[in-house]
């Protein structure tokens, strides 16, 4: 069995940690409409990883440092990361340009570029897994500590502020958690495909239920299935992990879009039977 190979065990461990984290963070990303921020942090991470390579440091460390610092700067300056925002887009584009230069100047750049852009879960080392567990653990603990007010502030910001929830502080904390999550997800699926773990499972989950707890549970489940399924499929074929991860999560999303309206229809019918019009 392939399971006996250390590289497969390490890949599975890293995949589980990443999927659990991404699955928990995803619903908040969706509620706050932050897909662009996810992408932006990934791109900054790419530049960081490429810079680290040039300095002969581990790219994963450069990626983590760059996206974490970017999140801290963005959060404290209160910059809103929106697709419409030309300034943010320009900075990100230049960042990626710099990353390309760094990569080209570093030795073995093709392998490394591929790993950063498309993921390298089957090549993670023991140290990578340990770092992944530490980073993932910190992010999950932080998320657990702020989860309830964070959800309040994300879905109902006006009332949350009136109730004294520190919305500004929470958005900084969440950006930092997001940066950690992005750096984990890049390891599995690469910079170009992080949305497949950070947005797609949550997007599917919210089609299936309006129950906040179940949304998180489904999101984690879909992220886990995608990550582990992707690893297993890739081990038995020669196709890339990222392809399978994105294919599985996309299938889950499509299925949820098909099944969701039926579930919603059923619940609406149930409710309208005893709805008192206000």
């Amino acid at each position: 069995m392939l399971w006996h190979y250390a590289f497969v065990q390490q890949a599975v461990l890293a995949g589980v940690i990443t999927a659990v984290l991404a699955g928990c963070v995803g619903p908040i990303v969706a509620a706050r409409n932050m897909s662009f921020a996810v992408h932006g942090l990934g791109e900054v991470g790419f530049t960081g990883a490429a810079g680290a390579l040039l300095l002969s440091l581990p790219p994963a460390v450069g990626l983590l440092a760059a996206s974490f610092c970017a999140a801290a700067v963005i959060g404290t300056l209160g910059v809103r990361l929106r697709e419409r925002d030309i300034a943010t887009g320009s900075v990100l584009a230049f960042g990626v340009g710099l990353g390309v230069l760094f990569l080209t100047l570093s030795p073995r750049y093709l392998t490394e570029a591929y790993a950063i852009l498309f993921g390298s879960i089957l090549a993670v080392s023991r140290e990578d897994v340990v770092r992944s567990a530490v980073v993932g653990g910190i992010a999950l603990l932080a998320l657990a500590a702020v989860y309830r007010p964070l959800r309040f502030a994300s879905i109902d910001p006006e009332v949350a502020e009136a109730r004294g929830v520190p919305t500004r502080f929470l958005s900084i904390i969440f950006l930092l958690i997001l940066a950690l999550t992005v750096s984990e997800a890049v390891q599995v699926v690469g910079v170009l495909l992080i949305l497949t773990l950070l947005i797609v499972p949550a997007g599917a989950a919210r089609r299936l239920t309006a129950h906040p707890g179940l949304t998180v549970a489904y999101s984690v489940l879909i992220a886990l299935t995608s990550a582990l399924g992707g690893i297993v499929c890739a081990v038995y074929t020669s196709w890339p992990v990222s392809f399978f991860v994105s294919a599985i999560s996309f299938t889950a999303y499509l299925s949820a879009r098909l099944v969701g309206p039926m579930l919603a229809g059923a619940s609406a019918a149930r409710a309208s039977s005893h709805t008192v019009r206000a």
Partner: protein
Amino acid sequence: MTAERPPVRLESAGLRLGGRTLWEGVSLTVPRGEFLVVLGPNGAGKTSLLRVLLGLQRLTQGQVQIDGHPPTRGSAEIGYVPQQRAFDPEVPLRGRDLVAFGFDGHRWGFSPRFRAASAEPVEGMLSLVGASGYADVPIGQLSGGEQQRLRVAQALVGNPRLLLCDEPLLSLDPPSQQAIVQLIADWARRRNATVIFVTHDVNPLRAVASRVLLLAAGRWAVGPVEQVLTTETLSRLYGAPVEVLQVQGRVVVLGAELGGHEPVTALPVRDR
């Protein structure tokens, strides 16, 4: 028993935002159990007044006291009902979850099973506002009136003694407006609670309003509806001829942006 301090007291209060004086010299005591309606055109600083009371905005002159103390952010004594706004139909949130936000949403940590949504105070509030029947429906699928009933439950679930409402009737149809006003007024009467209700249209509130605070063009006036909403008072406040008419029991203001005649499709400019 000590003499009770008034729920809200403003002393020569003034607010300047972005180089513009919204209002100044406002001195006002709101006694317990009062239902104060705050009227005024867009940008008159009505929402800002609520933000001052919530401790989210500092006065630029004068003093404000809530129960004899300066306002504190997140006071459990204050409930807040916002404007109705459209939720994303997909947002994973049921009616009961919205109410649960008002119950414990501000507390740190997390509850793995989201128990607050079915906690006893939440169930009690859902039934008080008549929302038990649709408490499990995704919020985005509810009508504006249903959403506002849930908003009222959300604001009341913490048992506040002062309720601040910021245009909660906007974009609701007249029967829903009346239902929301009645819910709030009944609750306030039972609890002897104080209500400060910001609105564009005084008409749905005429039966329940104790007094009206009118903010317009940097000036203000306070008193019973029939004393404040007069041709004389409004003309003086606006510094221009304004006509107040009674048409079929409704107050209609001509020549100034105020009252029930303006189209509710025009959303107010949020003055933050």
